């Protein structure tokens, strides 16, 4: 990287005042601005999906409540906590990096990666349970015109549920990749307390990922919380144990 050898140019106005020229190299604020703009596109992308979700909610109110009641609030709630804690570790890592504690920063990034995997693991259990109950992409319940078909509103609800939690999970996976890449760059001495824009932006990304979940969770899991019909899920059945499902 020849970036570090960069010396900014000076432009002189007619009255002899010297102005430092901003180059594209080592432009911390440019890097931050660029990433904020990128985050804006993510917000719009999920925003459009929330709009679709809301539109169908107005059309199929009761179906939405029923469908939401069937979701697993314990696992979803647990994952919400996991993501909030991971946002904390990510933020602490950035603070440590900025204060010069590179080792502590790396530790915090590893902790964040751990929580990300924990989130994905719980998500996998959740989806598997739903699959066992016959509610999954491509299964009969979400197709129209057969004996198992759910009502239209529920088909739409679960369609958006799998799409949005799936895309959110995809962002978690990308995030894990980014954090591993960040660790590699830290180890190579390319991300340092003086030059930490990459760390800053990945922390920003991770904040957005957890922020989206903060909206996804109530919208999918909580709107049906009062509707009843919910019972503690039988996680044991996933691993071949005795099922007490009626």
């Amino acid at each position, binding site marked *: 990287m020849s970036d570090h050898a960069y010396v900014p140019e000076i432009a002189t106005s007619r009255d002899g005042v010297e102005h430092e020229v901003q180059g*594209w190299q080592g432009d911390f604020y440019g890097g931050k601005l660029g990433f904020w703009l990128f985050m804006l596109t993510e917000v719009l992308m999920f925003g459009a999906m929330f709009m679709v979700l809301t539109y169908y909610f107005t059309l199929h109110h009761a179906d939405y409540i029923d469908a939401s009641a069937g979701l697993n609030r314990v696992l979803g709630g647990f994952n919400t906590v996991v993501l909030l804690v991971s946002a904390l570790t990510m933020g602490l890592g950035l603070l440590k990096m900025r204060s010069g504690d590179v080792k502590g920063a790396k530790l915090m990034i590893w902790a964040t990666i751990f929580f990300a995997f924990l989130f994905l693991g719980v998500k996998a259990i959740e989806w598997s349970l739903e699959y066992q109950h016959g509610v999954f992409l491509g299964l009969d319940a979400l197709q129209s015109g057969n004996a198992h078909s759910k009502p239209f509103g529920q088909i739409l609800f679960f369609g958006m549920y799998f799409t949005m939690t799936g895309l959110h999970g995809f962002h978690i996976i990308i995030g894990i990749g980014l954090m591993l890449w960040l660790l590699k760059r830290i180890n190579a001495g390319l991300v340092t307390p003086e030059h930490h824009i990459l760390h800053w932006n990945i922390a920003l990304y991770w904040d957005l990922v957890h922020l989206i979940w903060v909206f996804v969770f109530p919208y999918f899991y909580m709107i049906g919380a009062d509707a009843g019909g919910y019972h503690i899920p039988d996680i044991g059945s996933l691993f071949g144990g005795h099922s007490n499902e009626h």
Partner: protein
Amino acid sequence: MSKSYFDETHCAIGHPKTKVMQWLLTIDHKRIGIMYAAVMFTFFFVAIATAMAMRIELFAPGAQIMDGDTFNQAFTLHGVIMIFLFIIPGIPAVFGNIVMPLMIGAKDVSFPRLNWFTFWLYILGCLIALSSLWTGNGFADTGWTFYAPYSLTTDTNVITTLVAAFVLGMASILTGLNFLVTIHRLRAPGMDFFKMPLFVWGIYATAWIQLLATPVVGITLILAILEKYFGIGIFDPSKGGDPVLFEHLFWIYSHPAVYLMILPAFGIMSEIIPVFSRREIFGYRTIALSSASIAGIGYLVWGHHLFTSGMSDIAKTIFSFLTFFVAIPTGIKFYDWIATMYKGKVILKTPMLWALGTIVTFAIGGLTGVTIAMVGADIHLQDTYYSVAHFHYAILGGVVFLFFAGLHYWFPVVTGRMYNETTAKVAFWLNFVGINLLWFPMFIAGYYGMPRRYFDYLPEFEIYHQISGVGAAVILAGLLLMFWNFLRSWNNGELSGTNPWEGTTLEWHLPSSPPPLENHTKVPYVDFNPYEYHHGEPVVKFDYETMKRID
């Protein structure tokens, strides 16, 4: 002879020795712009060929050279290439890349490696789009708008086209992001926003649209792909979905997208008019701010694509009114340009001819747009040749004509040579006569009820189609002549010098033509307005060694 950016370059990875690798890996904004242009105009001619095939088919009633299904694929291919591969990346990718950093006195864009990556993302999108020509059940036959539910049920290869549109959308977002940061961070010292050339304003407004509108269509395409592939219910009415919702989401992006096409083109106009009138531009601030307000209002008008799709009357009325509002900032620009020429020293070189021609053709395209923004008129005229003619007058006669104007105007900066003026003028007149022959009869045919996207028609429409066919041939001749002129002049045109047009903006103050790798010798301090002329002469002069003002 000093070294130009053709002789040396920075690369994304390492220091490759071969010329080919130096081009493929280059992060120099000028080289990337040239590569965009090369790929884009290749596809442009593929889409022209498809259009010519359709015109031959339509030369007489009944089937001539293709059946109805092939015709559906032909207009989809034409639309997908022209919209997603050519005109949306279009001017920003070519001139935004080549000229914008020069105009603000920057060495490159803010994220040169991202720019390189974006170019290859664009190439990937192009390859995916074209791959469906040979795979699956042939190219999509949905039209470039992919309306649900037909796009969800057709067995043609619509998925690859959707994926391609998504990838190209990503490239578009990243280009916009790069330009926004560049314009905010890398302007030369002293150049505040109201000292920027108006083309930079055009690119700036466009970049916001690219950034804020494209994600919406991106996710819409993803939803359609998931729906088609995994059978989830979102837009399919047989699962309770609402296909009109697809139309809303699609046009929330795709209507701002037409302003995304036209705003940088207006920027080119605002460069050419003052330079070839040798006069300071009239109403600089109003032009700059009207770009921004077109970008803003453009978000609120998408509903006029849905007047016949099922929408409440009150919504139709609101969308109709909002659509009229777009005509106001556009009108301001037109009056400003005309006022700039008043008492100016108008020089009729080819770039100016294209600009003046556009004032005519875009006025027709724009004003016919106002007629179909009226709900009542639109219900009669929608899906007829009238709207086809409106669109092509506005986009071909507006965006593409100004793109060509820019190609002539900045040809000396890019290549260091001058095109042949006489040939270029002949090419302009062929295009200008051709476009009117090709599209004006369609207004009349459409008014009498000729529907679009049909491969056959009633005998009374034959005369309009035949005049259109002749016009298409004339345009084709003009285009071939123009590009032949460019290619020939690039090889052995006269050397142009750095400032053949007596332009005032910074891309005319480079130390050599074509420019060196890192542009200006030194970054100038900008304490002047972009178009300062006094008695027909540029005011600001530089010593190109030190980039200090010597006037």
